[in-house]
């Protein structure tokens, strides 16, 4: 606790020297100044975000479900925000649409919406949280991504599932989240077919992830051990894992 002082009586010079020694012990605080150096700042914050993602990934519990809500708690459909990075409607031609599946899967190829709809449907009222801070409760329906991964014979020991979208958006998920029972390939909102501005014909709906991870207008899905690219917003500086 108390530092050793040579004796109980010190002259002014000795007291200054004792004080100086104690002050110098605080120099480690100056290390934080590295964050103020423009050259180091970007790298340090990237490390910080990486550390944060690592912690978040460890906190994620596979069996833990996000809260579900009563019908009475739903945000009315017309008050469910439409968020895009670019355009509301990338003009998908539904008749020609299929999901291109590739990577570490046994049955790569094109999958029509009908095939996805043949999987058991899950409907859930869950909270949708935007990174900006707002949140709404919506009713979503679709096939469990885990069921679809089984259908395509995915290697679930792979680390990632990546998607690409008709508006050139792209995203990647950790396998644990992809296999989570509430992670949906969503084609229905409020028990109606998904509308174009909400991501028709197929989007991700993941109550355990923040909004920007839940990509819309899916065109491609890949199971992979290595990420070529992480995600549209992640490349601008957002967190990769951003689990709820």
């Amino acid at each position: 606790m108390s530092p050793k002082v040579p004796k109980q009586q010190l002259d002014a010079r000795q007291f200054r020297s004792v004080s100086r020694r104690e002050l110098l012990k605080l120099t480690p605080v100056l290390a934080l100044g590295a964050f103020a150096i423009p050259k180091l700042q970007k790298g340090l914050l990237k490390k910080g975000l990486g550390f944060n993602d690592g912690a978040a990934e460890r906190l994620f519990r596979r069996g833990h479900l996000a809260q579900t809500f009563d019908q009475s708690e739903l945000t009315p459909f017309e008050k469910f925000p439409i968020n895009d990075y670019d355009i509301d409607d990338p003009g998908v031609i539904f008749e020609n649409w299929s999901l291109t599946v590739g990577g570490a899967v046994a049955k790569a190829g094109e999958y029509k919406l009908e095939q996805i709809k043949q999987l058991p449907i899950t409907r859930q009222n869950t909270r949708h949280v935007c990174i900006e801070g707002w949140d709404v409760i919506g009713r979503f329906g679709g096939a469990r991504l885990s069921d679809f991964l089984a259908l395509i014979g995915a290697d679930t020991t792979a680390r990632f599932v990546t998607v690409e979208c008709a508006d050139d958006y792209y995203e990647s998920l950790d396998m644990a989240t992809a296999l989570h029972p509430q992670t949906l390939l969503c084609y229905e909102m409020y028990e109606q077919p998904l509308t174009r501005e909400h991501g028709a014909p197929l989007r991700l709906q993941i109550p355990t992830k923040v909004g920007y991870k839940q990509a819309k207008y899916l065109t491609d899905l890949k199971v992979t051990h290595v990420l070529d690219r992480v995600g549209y917003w992640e490349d601008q500086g957002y967190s990769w894992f951003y689990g709820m």
Partner: protein
Amino acid sequence: MSAVIEIVQPNASAADGEQAPPSVVARAVYEHPFIVRLCHWVNTVALFVMIGSGLQIFRAFPSFGAKIPQKDLLHWPKAFAIGGWLGGALQWHLTFMWIYMATGLLYVAYQIFSGNYRQVLFTHRDLPGVWPMVKHYFFFGEKPPAREAYNPLQKQAYTTAIILGFLSVVTGLVVWKPVQFSWLGWLMGGFHYARIWHFAVMWAILLFVFGHLVMVILHGWNNFVSMLTGWKKDPEY
């Protein structure tokens, strides 16, 4: 526990060659152990970053109501925010929250294990001393005699600050991971309310910081220096 030393000035030799005892010019008390000072200053930086970046995050949706229609609560000026944009601010916030929590934990652990908490923790024994101090600070009452490093009102303020720090962390955890910390979120009314609490706790902390700075200025230089060197010259007790 705190060491006391006397600062002395040697006296000139007396005529008969005998050394006169040195005269005591000041007293100094070791008031702030190293870990406390280290945590104080690292946490000061972390708190500054957390509030600055937090306000930039708030700018992305400056409301606690619905998104549609959106009613903004206040437009915080960008000049008093850190990070430049939402993503940048989140990088600062999510990095410095670990530093903020680490210094808070280290401080509390140190206070408990060293017993140093006795000098600062507000307990029921401090209650009778509160009103005389309030009279002194706010109603020009007589200054109660100082017997220890902190008066009851100071203890109350510092104890409250630690509680606010704790609340800032638990409300923040719910905003950060509302699904994983759903049990904590339940206590706060869910994600939506946790965000309101988190914001409210920030203002309470800012209020403490304001009062703290006013008192540091009023109490003078030696008091400030003691948080740097540990040693407080001319303590008033």
